[in-house]
């Protein structure tokens, strides 16, 4: 039995064959033991799967699950804050600066070259300093855009774990 024949058997089982082809398939199965055995196996698998999902329950209480759904709905429905209105001088600047391409290009160039701000450094710099016993280490997930700084000093509580350093798994 080649692959096309096997797929034809499957299509016959699934009711996907046109009437004429379905009749031919039925006749083939009736006279060919190998085809009959294959069809039987496919049928058993289908029967085994029937009703598989019945009885599956979401493992959270009605109230808890609903509270999460409701909260998320409300969060997404909260309107975003209105953008700040452009200051007057910005409006004036746009109005004043003429269609002169040279002046606009010059302004754009100057806007990119800015003096260092109060923190110094350049955009993209990462600097971290920590207490020596805080055991800080950093993990960066670039695809999700998340940075984790984990501090491994023990919890501040007499019920806390022992003196061993807390770890991530």
């Amino acid at each position, binding site marked *: 039995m080649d692959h096309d024949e096997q797929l034809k058997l499957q299509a016959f089982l699934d009711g996907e064959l046109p009437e004429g082809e379905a009749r031919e398939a039925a006749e083939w199965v009736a006279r060919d033991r190998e085809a009959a055995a294959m069809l039987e196996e496919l049928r058993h698998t289908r029967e085994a799967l029937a009703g598989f999902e019945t009885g599956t329950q979401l493992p959270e209480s009605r109230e*808890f699950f609903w*509270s*999460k759904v409701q*909260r*998320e709905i409300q*969060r997404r429905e909260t309107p*975003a*804050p209105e953008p*700040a209105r*452009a*200051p007057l001088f*910005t409006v004036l*600047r746009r109005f*004043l*600066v*003429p269609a*002169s391409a040279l*002046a606009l290009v*010059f*302004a754009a160039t*100057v*806007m990119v070259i*800015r003096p*260092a*701000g*109060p*923190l110094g*450094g350049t*955009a993209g*710099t*990462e*600097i*971290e*300093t*920590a*207490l020596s016993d*805080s055991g*800080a280490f*950093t*993990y960066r*997930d670039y695809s*999700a*855009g*998340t*940075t*984790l*700084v*984990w*501090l*491994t*000093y*023990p*919890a*501040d*509580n007499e019920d*806390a*774990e022992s003196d061993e350093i*807390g770890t*991530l*798994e």
Partner: protein
Amino acid sequence: MRAKLGRTIGVGWFAIALALLAGGQVNAPAADMKLQAFLLWGTDDSKPPEGKDYKPVQLDVRQKLKDLPLKWTNWFEVRHKDIGVVQGATSPVPISEKCQLNVTRGIGPELEVTLIGKGKEVVRRKQALPKGEMLVLGGNAPNSTAWLVVLKRLE
């Protein structure tokens, strides 16, 4: 004549533009950087402790936490605060009686975040935080639980 007038007007506008630039007024004053700060509690229990009104963590935050190497199964929100930080200014974010986060805005998307515990600076981190990204500080808490402070930059 018309050409000369046109050139004069052009130079005049150019001079005005330069004057504005020289005055350092070209950049619009930086708008607030809008952040959300969450204090989260991590546990393997399915519910918060009795009497604690913690809420389930927001879905988008939860999904990002799933990708981090943190072993706790569930995260609950203890409190959250929306903050806006202006360039050069610092916003304090109280975490608990003994802990506070100071968030200072630098240039563009740059932030400096300082965690202060019991009056001491525990960790200071400076990095860019583009829109939609998160900075998470965390550590162990009693009874095999964990605390997280999540700073999320809003769209």
